[in-house]
């Protein structure tokens, strides 16, 4: 029994683009590049030592809290909130 023909995505794309082969090639190249980039990004993210990264980040947050308590009142800020937006200077150089 003859196996059913599987239409690959590239063939479908080719039919879609028809005679515009340059655009088709560009699309295929970009698609391949994007796929490679995604694979590379995933393997790169897996290769990182997340314990170190998150450890330093947690340490930074702890130190930020301590620093805000340590500095004098005029230099400390409220934990949650924003600051006043000052008037834009008349003349921006």
């Amino acid at each position: 029994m003859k196996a059913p023909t599987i239409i690959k995505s590239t063939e479908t794309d080719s039919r879609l683009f028809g005679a515009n082969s340059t655009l088709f090639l560009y699309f295929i190249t970009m698609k391949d590049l994007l796929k490679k980039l995604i694979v590379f990004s995933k393997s790169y993210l897996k290769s990182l030592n997340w314990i170190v990264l998150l450890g330093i980040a947690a340490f930074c947050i702890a130190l930020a809290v301590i620093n805000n308590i340590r500095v004098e009142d005029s230099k400390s800020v409220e934990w949650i909130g924003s600051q006043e937006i000052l008037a834009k200077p008349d003349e921006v150089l």
Partner: protein
Amino acid sequence: MKKTIISAALLIVASILVAIGVAEISFPESFLTFTDQDWLIDIWPKAYRYNIHVGLAAVFLATGICVPAYRLQKDFAIRALETLFRVGIGGMFIFASIYKIQDPHQFAVLVAQYQFFPALHLESVNNFFALVYPQFEFWFGLAMIVTPFVRESAFAIFWMFVSFIIALTWALGNDLGITCGCFELEDGDAHDKAEAWTSLIRDLILIWPTLWLATRKNHSLIKVWKRK
């Protein structure tokens, strides 16, 4: 041996040029700045206007000099460049963070001027961001120099550069008329748009070596030179 010496000499020249370039772009009145020298201004009074041009030319020239240094002694050049980038970028982040850590309020005021968080409906995050971000700069900068975790620290610094680029582009796009606030705090309503441009150019240049460092193997600076 002879090749290594020539390669080292070329890299030293390239480092000096990069230092001059950074000084020209970011620190117009430092001792490394060439365009605000009195003798030059006496001859050519408008010389100080060309600090960005001179800075960029110095950086491009330094990049050009790295090519023969790399071709002469590939292994040595890579080790030297990794060391220079780690110390340079890490040191820059440590230096940039110190005044922000000392005065969180002033930095929070500066961050608020970007008006970025209100646009995202996240006004309440402003102060906490201003508290934590300088700590990230300091500790990831330090980690890049003194620990073997170059990939992790460069990864974090890379995303900090991305955030700087987004913030500066936002400020310039909305014509906010604010300074970068990268290395010194001003009164919050500072007015020189050119500084935001120079900071953007600097960040767009420095993000590439950071990206390269993020792909290096984890080694301490000593092991970079010891490994075979």
